[in-house]
């Protein structure tokens, strides 16, 4: 008898489809074009962050400093404009800060060979602390006059589609091209699959690892700007929230294994859609917060358990750090 192989990606997609169907049938007002757009809009920033995380995870790393990379450069733009600097100068400063964060992360991991978990945990703390101590006057950096027009990055719509969804789409296309159409993308997969083999074949593994973290930090900065524009402020305290777990959830749930070398943009989209559908449906149902966490956890457990049953682990495929 031929065993049916179902990947985690397909399981998650099935869970998503089942949820979506249930909500569509039983929940009045769920399946309207308007609500669909709201659903996507609500998870657009999460999706963008998921893309940044995906690049790093595919290369067998993890970037816990991603939320700091979202909060601090984004907040810096708002703060600098508030203090009277011009918008282009502020954006440039934020971009440079993001690149610096990425370079430090990459250098620590690729050259100093610090495990990414610890390196990015530390840099994330450092960057968040830097923002609090030196850059921002208050945790919530308010929008100011000088930013007029810039809020269109996260508000309003383009051709009827809310801008933040368009931004997510653009980020998807860019990351897709990077991963699938460039040599660097192929290198990232190779490194994720087997870093030692990649190095032996002559791939410049260290510079590529640095590149991953720089791109991730820049994507984080971009997500931060979209978020700030969307809520007209930058709540830099978001660094202390559980957002980073949601980002990892999107990536892992979508089927990008933490062992690296697998998955792509499509996985991030599926993971994001699942989270978005759950959040949206539960908000419409007005389920209390504690109940929402319970359900989120339950759905995640079901997905992971189903995966374990359908794709049992063995010594050949199991790797350290695999989940």
């Amino acid at each position: 008898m031929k065993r049916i192989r179902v990947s985690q990606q397909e399981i998650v997609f099935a869970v998503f489809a089942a949820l979506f169907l249930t909500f569509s049938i039983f929940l009045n007002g769920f399946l309207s074009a308007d609500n669909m757009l709201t659903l996507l809009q609500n998870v657009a920033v999460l999706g963008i962050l998921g893309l940044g995380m995906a690049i790093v995870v595919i290369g067998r790393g993890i970037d816990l400093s991603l939320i700091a990379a979202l909060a601090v450069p984004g907040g810096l733009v708002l703060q600098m404009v508030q203090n009277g600097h011009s918008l282009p100068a502020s954006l440039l400063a934020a971009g440079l800060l993001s690149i610096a964060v990425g370079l430090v992360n990459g250098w620590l991991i690729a050259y100093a060979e610090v495990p990414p978990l610890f390196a990015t945990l530390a840099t994330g703390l450092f960057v968040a602390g830097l923002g609090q101590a030196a850059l921002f006057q208050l945790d919530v950096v308010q929008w100011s006059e000088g930013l007029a027009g810039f809020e269109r990055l996260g508000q309003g719509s383009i051709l009827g589609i809310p801008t933040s969804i368009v931004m997510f789409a653009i980020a998807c296309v860019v990351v897709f091209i990077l991963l699938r159409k460039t040599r660097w993308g192929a290198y990232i997969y190779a490194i994720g699959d087997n870093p030692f083999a990649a190095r032996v074949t002559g791939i410049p593994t260290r510079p590529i690892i640095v590149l991953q973290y720089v791109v991730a930090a820049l994507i984080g900065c971009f997500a931060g700007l979209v978020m700030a524009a969307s809520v007209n402020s930058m709540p830099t305290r978001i660094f202390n929230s559980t957002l980073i777990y949601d980002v990892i959830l999107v990536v892992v749930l979508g089927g990008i294994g933490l062992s690296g070398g697998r998955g792509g943009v499509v996985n991030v989209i599926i993971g994001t859609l699942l989270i978005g559908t759950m959040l949206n449906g539960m908000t419409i149902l007005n389920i209390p917060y504690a109940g929402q966490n319970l359900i989120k956890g339950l759905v995640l457990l079901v997905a992971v358990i189903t995966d374990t049953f359908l794709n049992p682990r063995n010594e050949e495929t199991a790797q350290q750090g695999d989940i």
Partner: protein
Amino acid sequence: MACMHKFALGSLAALALSAGTVPALAQQGLDEPFQKTFREALAGKTVAYVPVAMNFDLTEGWYAGLKKELEPFGVKFVIRDPNWNTNAGAQAVTSLISEKPAVMVIHNPDVQTYAKLLQRAENEGIYVIQINMGSAYRSSAFVGANWIEIGERQTEGVVKACQGKSNKIAIIQGALSAAASAYTLKGVENILAKHPEIKVVSSQAADWDAAKAKAITQTVLKQNPDLCGIVGFWDGMDIGTAAAIKEAGLTGKVFLATSGGGERKGACELVKNGSFDLNMSYDVPTQAAQMAGTIKWLLSSGAKPGSVKGSEYTTLIPITKENADTQTACWNLSDLKK
């Protein structure tokens, strides 16, 4: 002659008087009997300040206001910033007890965590002043907003705005674990009990997070485009709620009531541009001044810590379009820090 004599006598008397007393008054002033002990009671004393975190308008404002009032009298400040970490806060309070400051100004993260510690502090002879969020232990003084009143007055505003409309409202709560959020909700419930015609279509916690508040509000507005009002629990979070209302093109149609410390950029500016319709402000500089006054009184009274206990609930300032332009409705953090 007699008349002359009288005059001479009178002028002599006047001369004698002026020579005797008037110069004496100019040379030795009258000593005010209590100011010296007051100054001595304050000089060199330490006030320890433990907010839930620094770097936001409320805690920065309180600190700046306290320093402005007390530093000229030689009062020293120590500050412990737990940065939203309740355990770090409890540790800070514990270590402060052994350092024995004269006064501790405590901003509780919840009702229980510090309660026992604060009692111990007062037993050890430290005055404890609790600010805005009280604990289960009643200490020398509580200075702060009455959250139940805030919830009631916000809801009254929303209910009034809903008259003749759909009567559908939404509630955006803070974090479930925060007592401030639970108290405010109680206030909301008090008013809703009197208005059975009002229907709450959504009551969700957004964790003090503007992005979450926006996501919830967007979904709720898509489901109920005829919503007439929203009760939000903090202006820092309700920036997101307001952004969702604005994007749905419902500014002015959905009445948004919120509350906060009344800092100009976070409150008055946002009322002026139509983001908020009502912002109940607990006026941080006044709270700081009341705390400072209480500290002066306690230190100069010599009362045994814990022997007197009282509360100073803040008089709220409702900020609406009418007063958002005035100088007095809001305050600037930069001015307070000068």
